[in-house]
């Protein structure tokens, strides 16, 4: 293969060197990625929507402006966008029938940041409807396949973004993470996925699922790319009242510093029965590796871990039931006629939402309804305080916490589709992070043997501790070669 044909396999930082030198054009890079998508996405189904001409037009404009030679780290890099983030003039369906026909009238904050950095916006990636799910099976567009084994799910809800990055159908991608929706698919597809601290990245233009939990973040091929993309996405935005006006560091400066002197907390509650043996062995091996690199391992306890799934599914569904009230057939998307407004709302929502979304709206409405609010929602918010207390205590003893990202590698499509509670329990290692508001990253730490499936290591940091988790993730990555392995497609 010629070099130009292999451009889709490159990372952001590799492309940057060559674009700067002028060895390659942005158009060539974009064309290589589009060719890859055209050749492969019929099998992977990572994308819900793609306009190749539009992507090439953006690429040509960036070439003409010459910005890729100026050294902006993202200039000329094609990036895929989760189908829940508004890009002006493009559909934004959240993989739901209820947003059929909707064309975004504005750019999300993160999209403006990407444009300013000179990125090429590729198409829109598949997801669980309204980000509700852990497998990308709950999509009105159909199921996305795991590039490592097409019979298996890519994780979710940002499964299309993770599959696109893992299959070299995008150089990097944006996802959103409400209970693990960036980290878990990153783990199951063998890429790097980071959930920023609550308040680090503006959600303006992200279709809201659970507002006290949602964050947008990067999915990339390696840790350096993750640091670059996070730096572009971060920043204060007056249009998101939870956005924090804290200076954005150059996250790449945190890399290459090693792990000597860092204290790694290992919570005993994250190594329990039910964990897949190969996944556990890989994570334990990674902890030993960190130790051999000079990190100090500290055993600790997060005693309220077993309550996190229950707390999460009450709070997330309660918030979702309120956020999704806006889809009523009046202002956008689907409308099914009814004799009066209430009948129109009911018919529209009944026809437009899929089963998992309906289930969660019902659960959330119930948890907030008169007579049950204190017993369910309020109690869950109090339990959430206890979970936060666990992490505050833990971080007195350590700088980062290391856990598995998911109890198992990718499961087969359909395996858990009929049992919502089993599906919810697969999020057990990722959801506390959202409840507490801290940051976390998942990086590859090994593979199962037969079939060969990626396993993820989760590194959690304090609020605004992104530099520390990236530093550790990078040190581990540089000492291993998991991230260099690619699926056989």
């Amino acid at each position: 293969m010629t070099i130009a044909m292999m451009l889709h396999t490159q990372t952001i930082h590799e492309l940057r060197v060559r674009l700067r030198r002028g060895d390659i054009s942005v158009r060539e890079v974009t064309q290589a990625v589009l060719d890859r998508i055209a050749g492969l996405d019929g099998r992977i189904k990572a994308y819900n929507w793609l306009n190749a001409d539009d992507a090439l037009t953006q690429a040509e404009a960036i070439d003409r402006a010459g910005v890729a030679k100026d050294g902006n780290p993202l200039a000329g890099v094609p990036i895929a966008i989760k189908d829940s983030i508004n890009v002006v003039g493009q559909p934004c369906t959240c993989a739901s029938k209820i947003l059929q026909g909707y064309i975004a009238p504005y750019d999300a904050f993160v999209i403006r940041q990407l444009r300013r950095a000179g990125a090429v916006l590729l198409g829109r990636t598949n997801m669980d409807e309204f980000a509700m799910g852990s497998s990308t099976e709950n999509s009105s567009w159909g199921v996305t396949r795991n590039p490592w084994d097409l019979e298996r799910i890519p994780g979710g809800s940002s499964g299309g973004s993770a599959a696109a990055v893992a299959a070299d159908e995008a150089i990097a991608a944006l996802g959103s993470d409400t209970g693990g929706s960036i980290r878990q698919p990153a783990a199951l597809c063998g890429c790097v996925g980071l959930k920023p601290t609550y308040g680090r990245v503006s959600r303006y233009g992200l279709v809201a699922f659970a507002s006290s939990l949602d964050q947008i973040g990067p999915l990339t091929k390696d840790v350096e790319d993750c640091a670059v993309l996070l730096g572009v996405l971060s920043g204060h935005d007056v249009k998101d009242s939870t956005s924090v006006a804290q200076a954005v560091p150059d996250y790449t400066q945190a890399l290459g510093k090693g792990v000597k002197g860092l204290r790694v907390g290992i919570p005993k509650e994250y190594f329990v029965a039910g964990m897949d043996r190969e996944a556990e062995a890989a994570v334990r091996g990674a902890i030993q590796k960190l130790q051999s690199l000079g990190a100090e391992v500290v055993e600790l306890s997060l005693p309220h871990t077993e309550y996190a799934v229950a707390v999460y599914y009450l709070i997330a569904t309660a918030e979702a039931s309120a956020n999704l009230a806006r889809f009523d057939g009046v202002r956008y998307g689907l409308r099914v006629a009814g004799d009066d407004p209430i009948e129109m709302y009911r018919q529209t929502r009944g026809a437009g939402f899929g089963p998992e979304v309906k289930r969660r709206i019902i659960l959330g409405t119930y948890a907030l309804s008169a007579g049950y609010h204190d017993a369910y929602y309020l109690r869950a918010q109090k339990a959430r305080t206890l979970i936060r207390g666990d992490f505050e205590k833990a971080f007195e003893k350590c700088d980062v916490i290391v856990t598995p990202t998911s109890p198992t590698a990718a499961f087969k499509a359909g395996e858990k589709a009929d049992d919502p509670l089993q599906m919810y329990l697969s999020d057990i290692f990722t959801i506390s992070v959202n409840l507490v508001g801290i940051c976390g990253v998942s990086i590859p730490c090994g593979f199962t043997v037969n079939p060969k499936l990626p396993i993820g290591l989760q590194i959690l940091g304090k609020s605004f501790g992104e530099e520390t988790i990236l530093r550790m993730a990078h040190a581990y990555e540089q000492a291993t070669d998991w991230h260099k392995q690619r699926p056989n497609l």
Partner: protein
Amino acid sequence: MSQKTSDIDISYVAYLARLQLTEVEAARFSAQLKDILKYVEKLNELDVTNVEPILTRVAGLSNVLRKDEVQPSIASADVLRNAPQQARSLFIVPKIVEQG
């Protein structure tokens, strides 16, 4: 959680949520929600007396306000383009008030 979970009146909750369910959906969701609610009863094991609920999320932030000033926004034509039914810069909906 004093009430028994068998109390869920699924059609009432669906009505509150403005969600039309088929009979098959209502039956399936009732059974699944019973399982989920049984699972979340785990929270009853916790002593939450004197525990404050987390209601504000970002440390150091409260009541983020802006000045009440007119600012440019998305053109109404661009917004209305997505409406299932619209006319004269308005969204059209079924009749709400009967004529007297």
